[in-house]
């Protein structure tokens, strides 16, 4: 796809401050959809402040893997530990994890019956028990950060795709998460809107947020990622720093994927 939409190759890599504190730990995670083995022995350790880009062909299990991290999907085997909390059937643990993990979807999933501002204040008011005034102050702060404070009173249906996705990012940030998950945040956007969303994500990376991003925007990966993970058929095939991954891929499967994706 677009090597050049986000940033030219010579843009400097966003400085990262990766601590040695582990925030997400997946060990031997297996998941099946009925008979279909969709995740196979996934092992992954994410450190605080680390930015990880996940790529791979369609149907390889990327979405499923990151959706297991906030329990939108249930895994059957293995352990998932987020911020020291073990993911299990315990609802309290799930709630605790979800409060700390924000998620941005490919299809935005804004609430169409609420205004942009109400979208952003809903969870802070009802989950974090903030007062309305306080929640609105925080919401406006983040809407300014994603550069659309003037749209606060509009409904999502009145915004462009890029604007909607920026609202969705602001909405997640209003819960003050420590980890952000992005599932192909730019795939549903027209080319000219992709960069406005990626700019917001780069800004978020600069602020030191821990991020896991499923994307095919290789320019973004080169500029922001600390680590690139390549998945195929439910397995992590290769993981490496972006320079090594793009210039020096080890497995043949990765080489084939990169040649296909960079062919356009």
């Amino acid at each position, binding site marked *: 796809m677009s090597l050049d939409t986000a940033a030219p190759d010579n843009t400097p890599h966003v400085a990262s401050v990766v601590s040695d504190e582990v925030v997400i730990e997946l060990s031997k995670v297996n998941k099946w959809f009925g008979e279909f083995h969709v995740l196979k022995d996934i092992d992954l350790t994410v450190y605080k402040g680390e930015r990880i880009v996940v790529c791979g062909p369609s149907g390889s299990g990327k979405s499923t893997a990151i959706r297991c991290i906030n329990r939108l999907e249930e895994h059957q085997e293995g352990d998932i530990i987020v911020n020291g909390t073990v993911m299990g059937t315990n609802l309290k643990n799930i709630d605790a994890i979800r409060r700390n993990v924000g998620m941005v979807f490919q299809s935005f999933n804004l609430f*169409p019956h609420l205004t942009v501002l109400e979208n952003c204040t809903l969870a802070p008011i009802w989950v974090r028990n903030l007062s309305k005034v306080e929640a609105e102050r925080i919401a406006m702060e983040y809407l300014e950060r994603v550069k659309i404070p003037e749209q606060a009173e509009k409904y999502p249906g009145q915004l462009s795709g890029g604007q909607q996705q920026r609202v969705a990012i602001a909405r997640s940030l209003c819960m003050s998460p420590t980890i952000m998950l992005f599932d192909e945040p730019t795939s549903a956007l027209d080319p000219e809107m992709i960069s406005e969303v990626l700019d917001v994500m780069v800004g978020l990376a600069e602020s030191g947020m821990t991020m896991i991003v499923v994307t095919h925007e290789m320019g973004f990966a080169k500029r922001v990622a600390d680590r690139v993970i390549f998945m195929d058929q439910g397995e992590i095939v290769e993981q490496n720093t972006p320079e090594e991954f793009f210039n020096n891929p080890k497995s043949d499967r990765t080489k084939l994927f990169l040649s296909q994706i960079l062919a356009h």
Partner: protein
Amino acid sequence: MTDTMQTDAVFHPKPSMPPPPNTVGVVGWMRKNLFGSLVDGILTIGCLALVLYVLNSVLQYTLINAVWTANSYRECLDINKGEGACWAGISVWFNSMMYGRYPDPEQWRINLAFVTLFAWMAPFWFPKVSGKMLVGASAVLTFPFLAAQLFLGGETSLFHQAMVSVALVLFITVWLHVGTSYLMGRSIGDVLVGITGFADKDDRLHKWVHMGFFGVGFVLAFLYQSSWEFVEVPITVWGGLFLTLVISGIGIASALPNGILLALGRRSKMPVIRVFCTSFIELFRSVPLITILFMAVTMMPLFLPVEINPPKLIMVIVAVCLFSAAYMAETVRAGLQAINKGQYEAAQAMGLNFWKMMALIVMPQALKLMIPNIVGSFIGLMKDTTLVSIIGLYDILLMAKAAGQNPTWLGFHTEPLLFTASFFFVICFCMSKYSQHLERTIGGGYGRR
């Protein structure tokens, strides 16, 4: 390129000509739609004659030959030979058709209750009033207690008296809220906080200010209502339009909450709840209402202990509530099905629990989609309640029939039925128009371009 086109280098548009006569205007429209061919012409004239004939008959019956004052049906017939309506009878029977055998000196209680209900719901249509959901919820949850006290009278339990007091406080609060909203542009809650000087304190203290005012109001209301002395009116003398509205009102008010719970239960992951809700819905949807009503009044007493012998009306209301809940559950479920999976996922990812997700995200969207269907089942229920006349409850329909069986008014059948029908028409037509209005204004538009 041909020569002609080259010579015509400059383009001269032809001037617009008027259309041929007889194709536009009234004449044109009539030629096209009414008299397009010989057959069309014959049909048009035939229909016109039919319409005029019917109109004439209706006018003859309802106005020209109608009798407005008479003391018996015989008198009416003597005057107009049965060729016109006997509206005199309606004014004689009006009171019975409205209130049944409810004693005349106590009927103001019924009127007061209905006026209160309308006054309670009216702020819903005032644009400047905030917190409409709270207004609606307060009415739905507490008005029934107030109404029961007014309708039944007599001694009541302490709990009932407490609920009546709550209802009084909430009703007055709603109208104070309307007052402050229009005069000061602020909600009653803010005004109270402002008066007491808590405005600049922590938000969480405001709740206690509200509680304090509510407590004081509650005590006053309780003292006031304990001075009430209403004569007891037994449930068995209730009747007429009043009874119809009580049954259908309770059925309608309970249908939505119960239907939502049943619909959620049917989609639940817990097998026991799912099987129970599914069987309940399917059972009540596959049995005619009249069967359920018969079962309620003839068979239920056999299963209940002898000491508990609830009046027929209570049984009927329970049956109507169960029936309407089952129908509403399917309507709500259809609405839930239309909500995108992404909405659930986004709500979950933000940490909303199941009930908050349903109440804040899913239900508002699903219900807005289903407004026409919901109002449709309300209208159906409203009309279905006339079935209670078959099991001998004197609702407006049976009262209408009873009029014609009275010795002085023997044979007086058509007019009461017309009168009843016009009542149902007005009520149901208003509901239907209002639902169309709701659909246009909020039905899923969300300010979309």
